[in-house]
């Protein structure tokens, strides 16, 4: 890095280390955020957020509401202005960047609001007029895959269908970088899978995807790397495998022909079993627990039971990952 000639930072006459870094990495870095700080009045929404998204990768941001996910995305898009710090997208500083940069970005806002009076097709044509070119047939292809009727007036569409329209407008011009804020909200599970297929196709085509989510499985499935955000700070950036190991699940089961104590005896020895509560029922016993251990030993432990009900529920992220990462010192 030192060997690179230092380019002068415009206006100051001083070499800036970060500029050198950008020069070195601009070809393989899609997003570089350096110490992003954003204040809204007395609220500190972003408190020095830095991260790097390599080109052609899928980068997820997870965190509870108000953690700053949306603020990061809106700052990257230059919709809001950083109090300090800077972000470089596709090698260009995002601040007051020209249309050429935005043409290479597809954005799906977290709170998607679309004009209601026109048909989906008309609305998409408008955005294509601004950010195009869009390949002929591309819009129809995406709409087909998502099961979206383009000829209906936007106002009459359900929340999920509006979300599909938002996804189409973000993907249609095949941008180099996709910034997607809670992209699957309002989509049914089938469409969520279709969306994830779109994301992985985008990655395969060399596009970079930056997305936020509440749903851990979605992030696990789609992302290469995940940043965990809390109170405007990145707690950790982890690979997906690391995240998977930390996931906890809500467990609820009932079985017949055994006592509560017997059921407890089977479950309590399993690693990662917490908050176990076994009660007797009319025909047997039922148990609830929070389970963070490996699945196979659990399945083996219950394999011989006469189960009447078994629910393993994925908790939301706030509960699982954040609980672990926010209190790293806890036993």
């Amino acid at each position, binding site marked *: 890095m030192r060997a690179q000639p230092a380019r002068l930072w415009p206006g100051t006459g001083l070499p800036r280390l970060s500029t050198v870094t950008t020069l070195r990495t601009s070809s393989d870095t899609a997003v570089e955020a350096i110490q992003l700080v954003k204040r809204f009045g007395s609220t500190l929404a972003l408190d020095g957020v830095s991260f790097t998204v390599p080109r052609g990768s899928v980068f997820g941001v997870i965190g509870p509401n108000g953690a700053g996910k949306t603020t990061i995305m809106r700052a990257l898009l230059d*919709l809001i202005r950083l109090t300090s710090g800077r972000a470089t997208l596709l090698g260009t500083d995002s601040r007051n960047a020209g249309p050429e940069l935005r043409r290479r970005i597809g954005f799906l806002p977290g709170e998607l609001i679309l004009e209601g009076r026109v048909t989906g097709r008309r609305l998409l044509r408008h955005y294509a007029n601004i950010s195009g070119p869009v390949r002929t047939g591309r819009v129809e292809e995406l709409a087909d895959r998502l099961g979206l009727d383009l000829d209906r007036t936007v106002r009459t569409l359900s929340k999920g269908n509006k979300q599909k329209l938002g996804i189409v407008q973000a993907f249609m011009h095949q941008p180099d970088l996709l910034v997607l804020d809670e992209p699957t909200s309002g989509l049914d599970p089938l469409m969520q899978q279709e969306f994830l297929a779109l994301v992985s*196709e985008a990655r395969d085509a060399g596009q970079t995807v930056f997305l936020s989510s509440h749903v851990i499985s979605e992030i696990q499935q789609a992302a290469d790397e995940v940043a965990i955000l809390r109170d405007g700070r990145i707690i950790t950036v982890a690979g997906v495998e690391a995240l998977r190991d930390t996931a906890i699940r809500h467990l609820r089961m009932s079985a017949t022909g055994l006592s509560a104590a017997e059921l407890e005896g089977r479950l309590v020895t399993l690693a990662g079993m917490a908050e176990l509560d076994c009660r007797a029922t009319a025909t047997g016993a039922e148990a609830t627990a929070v389970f963070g251990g490996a699945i196979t030993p659990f399945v083996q432990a219950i394999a011989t039971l006469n189960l009447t009900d078994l629910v393993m529920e994925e908790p939301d992220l706030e509960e699982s990952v954040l609980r672990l990462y926010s209190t790293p010192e806890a036993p």
Partner: protein
Amino acid sequence: MAATQARLATQQRPLVRRTVLPMFTKSLVDSWRSLVGWSVGFTAALSLYLPIYPSMSGSSQMQDLIDSLPTELTRTLNYQQIDTGAGYTQSTFFGLMGFLLISIAAISWGAAAIGGDEESGQLELTLAHAVTRVEVVAQRFAALAVKILALALVAFVVVLFWNGPAELDIDVANLVETCLLFGGLALVCGSAALLCGAITGRRIWGIGGGAAVAVLGYVFNAIANQSADLEWLHDLSPYYAAFGNSPLANGTDGWTLALFYLAALVLGALAALTLRQRDVGV
């Protein structure tokens, strides 16, 4: 999936045509209904007032009626010159009903252009596409100007139509100038609404700002008409600047005309600069 990629990679990319000024075009296309509605309103108002002029101008009863009104009222309504075709058209339409209608149209368009769009949440997505904020303001300002001038053109055509049948005897050159002033005044009100909307991101403040220019301009003019002591209020009134010298009877000069359009441009430019500086949609 692989097949799709291969297709994407190898397929020729015929392009969807991009329009040159997408925001400008959309702004016009979106409001053609409202433009038609206002045009009908203009035509109706003019066609109610203008044809009855011949029956009023020759009638001494009408003059008696006006004389019997309080002078404050006739001064406010500018009815002193109602005995000429130009004075009548000025007082009834350009100075009153037409001014009211075009101001409402201009202010509602202006307030919706940025403030309304931001408040509804749609501006955020537009700005995430390949436009700059300055382009968005500039194109929407241009669309606002075109719509207002279209209404001024409707007024011109309808007055011209009635000029003969209603024996108004208005000079066509003066009519052109008056319609341009009429549009310029409305554009100033609409630009003020656009600016206030761009500053606050709220439609209602845009309407407030635009209405303040229109209403205060009218009120200052009306008060200043009452007495010489208050005449200085004329200087604060865009309404007086446009109509104080009875342009329909006397014409106006290029400077006055240019002043209105320059003022509107300045307001539009301020709106662009303001929007460029601030956070959007917070």
